[in-house]
């Protein structure tokens, strides 16, 4: 039963998540709310681990979520089912790439789905901000640290490894100095 649900949910992510790795987050967030497979807190760890390990982030997160749900079998099912729609779609349109790209309906759908995906990810981000930051470890040092990171991200696009590396060091220091 759980395997079937896992298959169905991740198949849907493969079909409906537009916009790359982070676009799967709203779906993973919804899963955390619907089933007791993993908590919203664990989702933040999942993002961190997926961003520092080799491979596409979307695949890493699917494997991780599947693993949290039901171990090795779960991770295999989640990974296979998120990939399956890609295989079918891409093989189908391989024969008519140019036609697909220039089709007015395709263009219009992309025009809608891009800001829509941005809205969904923002909603997850705001929820995570409330859940992980405002309601937990709110103190002046954390606020300053987050503000600096966000300021840096506005100036320059950096590799996720940078943010997470700096943040890990910050966590260790904060723990040693007892202000986290």
């Amino acid at each position: 039963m759980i395997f079937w649900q896992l298959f169905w949910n991740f198949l849907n992510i493969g079909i409906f998540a537009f916009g790359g790795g982070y676009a799967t987050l709203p779906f993973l967030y919804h899963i955390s709310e619907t089933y007791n497979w993993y908590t919203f807190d664990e989702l933040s760890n999942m993002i961190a681990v997926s961003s520092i390990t080799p491979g596409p982030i979307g695949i890493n997160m699917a494997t991780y979520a599947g693993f949290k749900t039901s171990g090795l079998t779960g991770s295999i099912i989640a990974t296979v089912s998120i990939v399956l729609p890609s295989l079918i779609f891409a093989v189908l349109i391989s024969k008519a790439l140019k036609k697909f790209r220039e089709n007015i309906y395709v263009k219009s759908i992309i025009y809608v789905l891009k800001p829509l995906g941005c809205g969904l990810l923002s909603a997850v981000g705001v929820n995570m901000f409330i859940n992980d930051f405002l309601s937990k470890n709110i103190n002046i040092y954390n606020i300053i640290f987050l503000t600096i990171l966000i300021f840096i991200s506005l100036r320059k696009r950096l590799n996720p490894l940078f943010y997470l590396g700096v943040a890990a060091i910050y966590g260790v220091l904060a723990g040693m100095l007892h202000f986290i």
Partner: protein
Amino acid sequence: MTNISLKDIYIRFFRIGTLLLGGGYVILPLLQSEIAEKYDCITDDNVCEYYAISQSLPGVIAINTAVFVGYKLARTKGALAAITGMVTPAFLSIILLANLLTQIVHVPFVQNIFLGVGIGVLALLFQAVNEMWKKSIVDKGAFLIFLASFTALIAFKVFPIYIVISGIILGVIIGFIRSRRGAEK
């Protein structure tokens, strides 16, 4: 001319998958050096086109690109070899790390790291949203769509699939209007 074997495709994508660290931004140069330079039937332009189309398809972008390249090299079998190669390093590293993490997550030192990393993740999400924003909010209509989907998820907790399906329907309607307009001109 490199001999196209499924094993070769698998190994090349395994290598690309391993080097994909911290997001898909580096995939294009990797594909150019690992694929376009090695196989005669795929050029730099092909690779760029595959990557561009992959972004407008659902699912994981790197996987979509792998399917296109693999399919071009050796049909469905090639696509399967490419996907498997791309997925293997991601899968193995997560399994190893997830196992390790469940064992050490209760150590105070590790908990401190994750508390810090939690803040890093917020900055990471902010950057991701910012990147998407620049590419997607091109006019007032796009901004309204952004607001609608944001509100639907955060305030009404609408199932994301329903939000995306509504978006696809809206896209079809806009496409219909645009094509009618095109026909009139």
